[in-house]
């Protein structure tokens, strides 16, 4: 029986040879790690544990209860919520509006501007953070200089918790528009012209066409963009990491940055793993919620 199975596998070995390299890497670095993360989130794994496994002990739910009481984690939760609630709608509104504008024509100028709006999306986040850090500089930054021309006082872009969060959001929105704009544009160009013509014959006004034809037909694109953007913003990381290191006063720490700091700056691997599972659960809940909302919407 086993012999037969083995023979069969050898005869049909080709698909396995093709799939094996990628599959092994995915299993090793994606599927197994998630189990490890789950297990070590119940331990006090740290640098000592890394050196010698006998130093690791199970501490049950203690990491999770500590998280619940950790004020920095509370701040990280709040900040992440703040980023998502302000950032995600801004990304969707801007990318949709720009896509609608770009959809007006197909001449060279529109192609050029499609490229311009897309460019931030593919530029390196570290370079972006470095450049924006200069733009935001209180004394020598371009933004404060432009404001000074209008007699507006210097803005402390990155030195004050709420303002710093908003500054990071502006930068992330700038970077986030590109990809979503392309998705909207593709969806817009997929709408058959006959729909618009029929609406025009019926005497529909511009805004009526927008709200009753274009936007409903973009439903799937909007849903897709919302889900992916939300998941992305829940993992907000590089911007605060490079520009503010989570400061001032932990005012820009996101959940992802909290996990990184706990794990790699303080080497509290067990605690960080517990934090990462909380983030994972938040992402799953938010995503499921959206799918549920969408289902009820489809009945109309």
């Amino acid at each position, binding site marked *: 029986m086993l012999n037969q199975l083995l023979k069969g596998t050898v005869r049909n070995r*080709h*698909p*396995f040879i*093709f*799939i094996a*390299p*990628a*599959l092994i*890497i*995915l299993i090793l*670095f*994606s*599927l197994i*790690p*998630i189990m*490890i*993360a789950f297990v*070590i989130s119940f331990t006090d794994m740290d640098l000592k544990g890394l050196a010698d496994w006998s130093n690791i002990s199970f501490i049950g739910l203690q990491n999770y209860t500590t998280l619940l009481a950790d004020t920095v984690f509370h701040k990280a939760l709040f900040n992440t919520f703040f980023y998502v609630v302000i950032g995600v709608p801004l990304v969707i509104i801007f990318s949709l509006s*720009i896509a609608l*504008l770009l959809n*007006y024509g197909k001449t060279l*100028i529109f*192609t050029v*501007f499609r490229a*311009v*709006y*897309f*460019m*931030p999306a*593919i*530029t*390196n*986040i*570290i*370079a972006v*953070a*470095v*450049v924006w*850090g*200069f*733009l935001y500089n209180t004394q*020598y930054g371009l933004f404060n*200089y432009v404001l000074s021309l209008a007699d507006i006082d210097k803005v402390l872009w990155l030195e004050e918790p709420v303002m710093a969060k908003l500054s990071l959001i502006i930068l992330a929105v700038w970077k986030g*528009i590109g*990809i979503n704009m*392309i*998705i909207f544009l*593709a*969806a817009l160009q997929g709408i058959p012209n006959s729909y618009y013509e029929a609406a025009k014959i019926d005497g529909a006004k511009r805004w009526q066409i927008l709200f009753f034809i274009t936007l409903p037909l973009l439903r799937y694109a909007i849903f897709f963009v919302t889900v992916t953007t939300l*998941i992305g913003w829940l993992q907000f990381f590089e911007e605060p990491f*490079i520009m503010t290191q989570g400061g001032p006063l932990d005012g820009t720490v996101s*959940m*992802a940055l909290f*996990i*990184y700091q706990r*794990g790699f700056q303080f080497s509290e*691997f067990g605690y*960080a793993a517990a934090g*990462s599972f909380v983030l*994972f659960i938040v992402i799953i809940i938010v995503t499921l919620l959206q799918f549920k909302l969408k289902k009820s919407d489809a009945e109309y």
Partner: protein
Amino acid sequence: MSSGKSKNNTERWIATILLIIGGIIVSLPFIWMISSSFKPENEILQIPPTLIAENPTFQNYIDLFTNLNFGVYLRNTLIIVALSFVGLFFNAMAGYGFAKYHFKGKEKVFYLVLATMMIPGQVTMIPVYLLLNEMGLINTMAGIVLPGLAAAFSIFLFRMFMATIPTDLIEAARLDGAGEFYIFFRLIIPISKPIFAVQGILTFIAAWNSFLWPLIIANDESLYTLSVGLSLLKGQYANNFALQMAGAAFMVIPIIIIFSFFQKYIVEGFTTSGLK
């Protein structure tokens, strides 16, 4: 009818003007980065700032390589780019395996592959670090590259494309006595050029920009990538903005050049990947 047309025309003009204003705002950081990178250190702190450098200099770029180790960072980044193309090849193989072969449990395995897309990087970050530590791969190039070598999304796109290749073609090659690998290299890869182009560009951009793994895995500077080096530069030369801008420009300009050459492919790549 004619009034409708002129109305359309006005709307187009308004749309164009709005696009131009928005476009200038969006590209402002790029313009500022490039112009500042050519300014000498005293000019960059000048108020009011100059839009175009009065005394343009290449000194900042030279400093990147002489005072800092940007040559090493560049070499490491290029090694990562090259190795990530091996990963691209693995993904293509897996895509082909899923597209054109039948075996027991294929769909289940494929769902498992897709499921890995939903796992956030922060969850696997710590266990992968621990795993690599057990394997003794901390502070090695292999440790930096291995975890990102296979990507479910890429496998998914390869499968989608390769499923459209007629099976008859493959059968005909088999009847002619071609081996499975010969078919893959000589038949499938040439036909799949378009998807390789898109994936190749995206792989290049991702590898060129790689930051988190090099940061976590590399303990010493000889393994740093450009991204890591640049973040280090921002910390060390906090007030030398001209140098920072030169470092940023050095990272961004190659991508902009590649992007302007392959714009069509990249945009279409994102489009197909976004909507399916």
